[in-house]
Structures are given as structure tokens and as C-alpha cells.
């Protein structure tokens, strides 16, 4: 073999590994093939720059202060929807997650069935389920919460199952060996180990649900989304800005809070941030 360079990859022949090369080539080819399909047009992007700027310019107007109380109520409604839907989903997905984890499920058939059920629940986005529930129970926050909780179970159950599957088997065996029953092994051996992952999942989903809840207003399923869309349609820029800022603030606060909680649970004692 001729050595042309002093550099080599950590493989037998020093060349880059075939799977890595193949995937890079595949991705690049796919991108090249699809560029025309999605109409990526540089001229159009540059041409619309001025329109984007003028829209952004419109945003920076004096906010409509009289609108603030209503904004607060709507924002609170959105937060309530988020927490309620996530809490409902939490209770449903814990047992489902247990059944959908390969190492915790009572039977392979149940494992497959629950997995399929979960993917069905998250197959369609919240907005579509919201449309379904709005036509079923009418306008308001109820269909919003239902739609959110429904899709969340689909995601949360899957995430829970996956964090149970990576649990250390040694610790599970430690509990099993002392005569703990089927259920006790899961409660004492698996759940404590999966807990940090669970918290992470719940926090991520809360974050996601908050944003999803803002969108649900689009189809009349309650929350801030309706105001957001209406003010955009009616060019009420003095309302648009406070709404955007309020959503940003809530998402950021939630993020801070979740970081705190997570490190506390992972390290057991109060963490220094």
C-alpha cells in the first residue's frame, strides 16, 4: 500500500469508513436532487428582503397597552392548557411507557400493540386532532386540551419506554434477587433509574406543548393563538409585538425552571447554577 499522506483514519486501510462515506454522498445527492423541487431561488430570497424589513419595521410600534389585560388572560389560558394537557398525558403515558418498554413489558405482543398505538396517536399533529375535537365538542379550550393530551401521550409514552429500556440491568437484578414481585421490580428497580430521563422528557414536552398550545388558537381551540392570528390578519402590529414577547418570556422562564429542577433531581442535592 502506498503511503501518500501522514494522515489516516482509524480503520484497517487508513481510508474513511465506507458507511460514513456512503451516508455523506447519499445526503448530498438527495439535497442536490430536491433543490429544484422546493424552489430554492436565491434571486427571490434577495428580492423579498425589503418586504421582510418593512414587516419587521411595522412590528416596532408603541404597544397597545389597553390590550394587556386581555393578553394576560389569554396567555394564562394557554399556560393552563399546556399544564393540564401535560399532566393528563403524564398519568396515561407512565403505565403505557412501561408496557411499551422491551425490558418491562409483560409480553412481546403487548409491547408491539402499545408501540403501534403510541405511533398512531402521534402520527397526526396537534392541529389536526384539534380540528377533529373542535368539530366533536365545539369551540374552546376543552378540544385544545384534548388534542394536546392525545398527541402528548403518543410522544411521552415512547420517550418513557425508551428511557426504561436503557436502565442498568444490574440494579434491576439487585432488586429481583431479593424476592420482589413483577410490579415491585419495575417500581423500585427501573423507575428511579429512568427518572432523570423522565424529567427531561416532561420538560421538553412542556416546552413543546406551550408552543403547540399557542398555535391551537388558529382552529378555535382556545388560548393566545386566536389573538395572534387575528392581530396579524387585521394588521394590528401594536398587539402582535406584546404577544410575541409574552410567548418568548413564558418559554424562557419555563426553560430556566426546568434546568433547575433537572439538575436538582439528577444530583440529588441542591445544584449550584
Amino acid at each position, binding site marked *: 500500500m502506498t503511503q501518500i499522506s501522514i494522515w489516516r483514519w482509524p480503520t484497517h486501510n487508513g481510508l474513511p469508513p465506507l458507511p460514513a462515506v456512503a451516508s455523506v454522498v447519499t445526503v448530498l445527492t438527495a439535497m442536490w436532487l430536491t433543490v429544484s423541487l422546493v424552489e430554492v431561488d436565491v434571486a427571490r430570497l434577495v428580492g423579498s428582503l425589503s418586504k421582510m424589513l418593512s414587516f419587521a419595521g411595522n412590528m416596532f410600534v408603541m404597544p397597545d397597552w389597553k390590550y394587556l389585560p386581555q393578553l394576560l388572560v389569554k396567555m394564562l389560558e394557554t399556560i393552563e392548557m399546556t399544564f393540564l394537557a401535560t399532566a393528563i398525558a403524564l398519568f396515561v403515558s407512565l403505565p403505557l411507557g412501561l408496557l411499551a418498554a422491551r425490558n418491562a413489558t409483560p409480553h412481546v405482543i403487548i409491547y408491539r400493540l402499545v408501540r403501534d398505538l403510541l405511533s398512531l396517536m402521534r402520527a397526526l399533529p396537534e392541529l389536526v386532532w384539534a380540528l377533529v375535537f373542535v368539530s366533536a365538542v365545539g369551540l374552546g379550550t376543552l378540544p385544545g386540551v384534548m388534542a394536546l393530551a392525545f398527541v402528548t401521550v403518543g410522544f411521552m409514552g415512547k420517550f418513557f419506554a425508551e428511557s426504561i429500556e436503557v436502565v442498568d440491568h444490574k*440494579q434491576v437484578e439487585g432488586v429481583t*434477587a*431479593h*424476592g420482589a414481585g413483577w410490579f*415491585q421490580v419495575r417500581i*423500585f428497580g427501573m423507575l428511579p433509574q429512568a427518572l*432523570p430521563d423522565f424529567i427531561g422528557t416532561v420538560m421538553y414536552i412542556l416546552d413543546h406543548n406551550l408552543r403547540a398550545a399557542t398555535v391551537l388558537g388558529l382552529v378555535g381551540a382556545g388560548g393566545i393563538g386566536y389573538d395572534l392570528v387575528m392581530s396579524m390578519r387585521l394588521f394590528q402590529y401594536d398587539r402582535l409585538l406584546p404577544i410575541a414577547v409574552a410567548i418568548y418570556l413564558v418559554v424562557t422562564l419555563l426553560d430556566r425552571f426546568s434546568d433547575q429542577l433537572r439538575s436538582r433531581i439528577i444530583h*440529588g442535592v441542591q445544584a449550584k447554577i
Partner: protein
Amino acid sequence: MSIISIKSATKRFPNGFEAIKGITADIAAGSFTVILGPSGAGKSTLLRLMNGLETPTGGSIHITGETLGKSNLRKMRSCVGMVFQQFNLVERLSVVTNVLTGRLAHRSWLGSLFYLFRNEDMEIAQEALARVGLTDKAWNRADKLSGGQQQRVGIARALAQRPKVILADEPVASLDPVSSEEIMMLLREICDRDGITVVVNLHQVDLAKRFADRIIGMNSGRVVFDGTPAELSPLTLQAIYKRDEIKDDTNLNLALAYA
């Protein structure tokens, strides 16, 4: 009287490896038995068979006269405690909760759903922790303890279930010499004072000689020695640690010269 009897047990794993090739042995109640053997001899598998963590492919295991099977597994385990090489504590739970998991065999699943125990369980757990000298660590998280301390929690967990037998699978293999000594002394004391039968897998010949009443030597799935520590001669040690694929094993002779 024998508390554990193994009747021509064999174990073949799904990958075709035969770890136990027909072993028959009786273990007397209240005795301290050490199983010696090279890595891969089947020591761990034999111990796991006695706790039902593995099921034998042939033969049977009897504990206090009852045959170990699927239906009585939980009941049998409630009188056989197990101590592991890697401690196998649930690291995110407190020390005392880990010890309390030794009581689970006596509690129903409904209470366990809410992590509930009885007051008497807590007393037993505290008592067990006092035995291993870790009362002041009771509320620490298990993973904050040193290796030697974690192993003592493991022993406390086994004690908390009030077992007739304690099986210890290489309990000192991950520990320093001083902690190893402490753990072995603790196990010996439990055997002497509480009359609990102890079966220990070991790699250290010297520890085996000092602590055991009886030594069982294993090599590639078979018993090659069974006797008192005094009967353990350099020749029998060679039989235990010999490696089939290597002739004139100088490493073996060298290692055993210091054993």
C-alpha cells in the same frame, strides 16, 4: 442437614455455551462455603442457579427441601439473599430505601406503588444498617458511598430480608484489600452469629483458606475439588486453575507459588 442441594444441575446458555456440566452438591445449614475457580469456570452461574436468576437446563435445585421452580420463585428468594460483585444497588435511591427493597418479598404491589413500607420494615432496615455500621449514612444516596460502603449496604439489604442463606457473587472483587477483609469478616460474623448459611464466590485463594469451612473448586463447569481449606494442596490448586488450551502454564505455576 443440607439447606441447599444441587442435583446433577446443568446449564447451557442460548448461545450454546455450557457453563455448568452436571454438578451435584449439598450445602450444610449454617456453614460457610467458598467456591474457587478461574474466570469462566461457572462459579457465578452456579450461584445464580441457587437464586433462580438462571434456570437449570437439566437437574434441579432444592432449597430447604423445596424444588426451585417458576411458581415458588418469589417465596424461595425471600429466604435467599444475594450480594453482588458490582453491588447492584439502585444508585438513585437512598441507602435505607435500598435496604428496604430487601423487604419487598413480604409486601404487596399495591403499597409498593406508592413506595410504602411498614414501620416494622423500617426497624428491620435500621437494625441491618447498624449491623454493617452504616447507621449515619442511612439517608445518603447510594451512589455517594465508597465501594466498600456500598457493598456493606448490599449485605444489609440481604440481611433485611431475614434470609436463611446469603449468596455472595465475588463480593470483594471490586474492593481494596482492607475493605475486602472487612466484608469477609462481616460475612463470617453473620454466618457465626445468626447461623445464616453463606456461600461465597472468590478469586482470592488466601481469603478462601482463612474464612471458609469448606471449599468447592470448579474448573470449566465441573467440581474438581471439594474439601476443607486444610486439604487444599498446591496440586489441587493446579487442578482448579489449570487451563486446557495451555501446556506447561508457567503463569499458573508462578501465580500459585504466591497463593
